[in-house]
C-alpha cells in the first residue's frame, strides 16, 4: 500500500548540516497495524510528516497504491486517502467539534453520525459536539477529537504521530482501547502509529525500529517486541509517567 524507498531528509540549521533520515526504506502492507518505535530524536516524527506531505524528502521516493506521491502536497495526499493525526493537536477559535468532523468526512454529517465518531473515542457526544476546538479543551480531549477526525475520514491509510503524547494515564488506558478497536476493524485499510509505548506496540502486527536516522530492525511483533522490552523503545506505563517527570 505505502512504500518509502531510500528516503533521505537533511536540514541546514544553526548547528550546521544535520542528516535526520539517512536511508530509510520500508513498506506498509494492506490490512496491517504497524508501529514505528525508537529513541527520541531518531527521526520517527519526521517519517510521519514525510508521509503526510508536511515535509518533502531530500532524496528518495514515496509511493501509495502504486502511485508516486513524492511531489504531491498535503491536500493531494489527503484526497488520495492518507490521514495524519498530529502529535500536538491544533486549536481553532470558533470552529466547533462538529465542524471539524464535517470537514474531515467531506460531507454534511448528521448529528447522529458525528456522535458515533465521538463515542468511539470515549467522549460523551452530547457534551462535546458543539464545543469549540479551543483552549477550553484539555490535551486528552483534543487528542481524542483528533482521532475522531481520522475515524470520520475513513481513509486507506491512517498515520498517528505519538497519540499518547501529552495525555494523562487515565486517558492513556482508554486510548489503548480505541486503538485495539481500530485494529479489529482494519479490513483493507492500514494504520501506522509512531509510539514507544509497550501497550501500543502490543497491538502491532509489525514493528519498525528507527534509531539515528536509520531502520535498525523491522519484523513481526512477536519477534521484535521481546528484544525491545526494558529499552527506551518500549516504555511501560510506569516508565512513561517517570519519563514525563
Amino acid at each position, binding site marked *: 500500500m505505502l512504500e518509502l524507498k531510500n528516503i533521505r531528509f537533511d536540514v541546514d540549521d544553526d548547528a550546521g548540516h544535520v542528516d535526520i533520515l539517512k536511508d530509510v526504506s520500508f513498506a506498509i502492507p494492506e490490512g496491517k497495524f504497524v508501529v514505528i518505535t525508537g529513541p527520541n530524536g531518531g527521526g520517527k516524527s519526521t517519517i510521519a510528516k514525510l508521509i*503526510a506531505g*508536511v515535509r518533502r524528502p531530500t532524496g528518495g521516493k514515496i509511493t501509495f497504491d502504486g502511485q508516486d506521491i513524492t511531489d504531491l*502536497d*498535503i*491536500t493531494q495526499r*489527503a*484526497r488520495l486517502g492518507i*490521514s*495524519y493525526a*498530529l502529535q*500536538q*493537536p*491544533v486549536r*481553532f*477559535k*470558533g*470552529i*466547533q467539534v462538529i*465542524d*471539524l468532523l464535517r*470537514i*474531515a468526512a*467531506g460531507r454534511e454529517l448528521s448529528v447522529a453520525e458525528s456522535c458515533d465518531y465521538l463515542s468511539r473515542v470515549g467522549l460523551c457526544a452530547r457534551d462535546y459536539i458543539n464545543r469549540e476546538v479551543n483552549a477550553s479543551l484539555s490535551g486528552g480531549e483534543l487528542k481524542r477529537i483528533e482521532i475522531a*477526525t481520522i475515524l470520520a*475520514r475513513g481513509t486507506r491509510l491512517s498515520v498517528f504521530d505519538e497519540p499518547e503524547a501529552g495525555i494523562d494515564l487515565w486517558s492513556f488506558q482508554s486510548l489503548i482501547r480505541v486503538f485495539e478497536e481500530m485494529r479489529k476493524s482494519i479490513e483493507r485499510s492500514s494504520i501506522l502509529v509512531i509510539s514507544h509505548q509497550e501497550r501500543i506496540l502490543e497491538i502491532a502486527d509489525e514493528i519498525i525500529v528507527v534509531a539515528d536516522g536509520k531502520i535498525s530492525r523491522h519484523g513481526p511483533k512477536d519477534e521484535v517486541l521481546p528484544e525491545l522490552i526494558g529499552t527506551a523503545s518500549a516504555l511501560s506505563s510506569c516508565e512513561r509517567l517517570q519519563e514525563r517527570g
Partner: protein
Amino acid sequence: MDTIQKRILAEVADLHAVPEGAYNIRANGVSAGRRSTANIEITSKPEGAGIDIRIRPGTKKQSVHIPVVLSESGLKETVYNDFFIGADSDVVIVAGCGIHNCGNQDSEHDGIHRFYVGENAKVKYVEKHYGEGDGTGKRILNPGTEVYMEKGSSMEMEMVQIRGVDSTERVTTAQLAEDCRLVVKERLMTHGSQSAVSVYKVELNGAGSSADVVSRSVARDDSFQKFDATIAGNAPCHGHTECDSIIMDHGRILAVPSLEANDTDAELIHEAAIGKIAGEQLVKLMTLGLTEAEAEEQIINGFLK
C-alpha cells in the same frame, strides 16, 4: 423597493419579507415603510432627520427593525435615531445599513443612535453593515452610538461588518449606572484598501456595573484597522476588553488598549492579540483534504462566527 434594495435588506437585517413587530425601513433617504405596535411607537423627528422609538415600560419579547438601504450613488445623509426603552422591558432591536454603489460618487450614511435604557430593562441590539457595487464611488459608514443605562439594566450589542464598506469610523460611548451590564461583540473583516476605526469609551459609574467589550477582526489585502477601547472604572465594578485579530497579506492593525481606574475597587482587564493564521492550523485542515485557500476560509469563518 427594487430587487437591489430587497437583497441588501436581506444582507443587513436577515429580512426577506416585512418583519414582525415594529419596523421602519429607510431607503435612499426616505421612509419605505413603517409600523408601530401597541407597545412600540415610531415617530419622525420634527426636523425630519431621523426617528424616535419609544418602547413602553414592561414590554416583553418584542422586536424593532430599523434597517437602512442606500442604492443611489452620491447620497450622503446623517440620521439621528433615539431609542427610549421603558423600565423592565425586554426587547430586540435590529439595525443595520447596506450600501449599493455602482456609480462614481461616494455614498455615505452616518447614523447616530442614542439609547436611553430604563431601569432593569434588557436590550439586545444587532447592527450589521454591508457594502457592494462595482462603482469607483466609496461606500462610507460612520455610525455613532451613545448608550445611557439606568440602574439594573443590561444591553448586549452585536456589531458586524464583514464586507464591502470602504471606510468606517465607529464611535460608541456608554455610561452605566448601578448594577448595569454591557456586553459588546464586534466582528469585523476588512479587505482591499478599506479602513475601519472602532472607538469605544465605556464609563462604569455605578457600583456593581460591568462591561465586556470583545472585538474579533480580520484585516486582509491592504486594509487598515484601528481598535481603540477605553474603559473607565469610577466605582466598584468589573471591566474587560479584548481585541483578537488575524492579519493577512499587507493588512495593518493598530490596537490601542486603555484602562482608567478611578476607584480602588474597580477591576479592569485588557487583552489584545494580533497574529497571522498559524501554519499548523492550515496544515491540520489540509490533512483533512482542504486546499490552503479553503483552509483559510474555514479558519476565518470560524473566527468571525
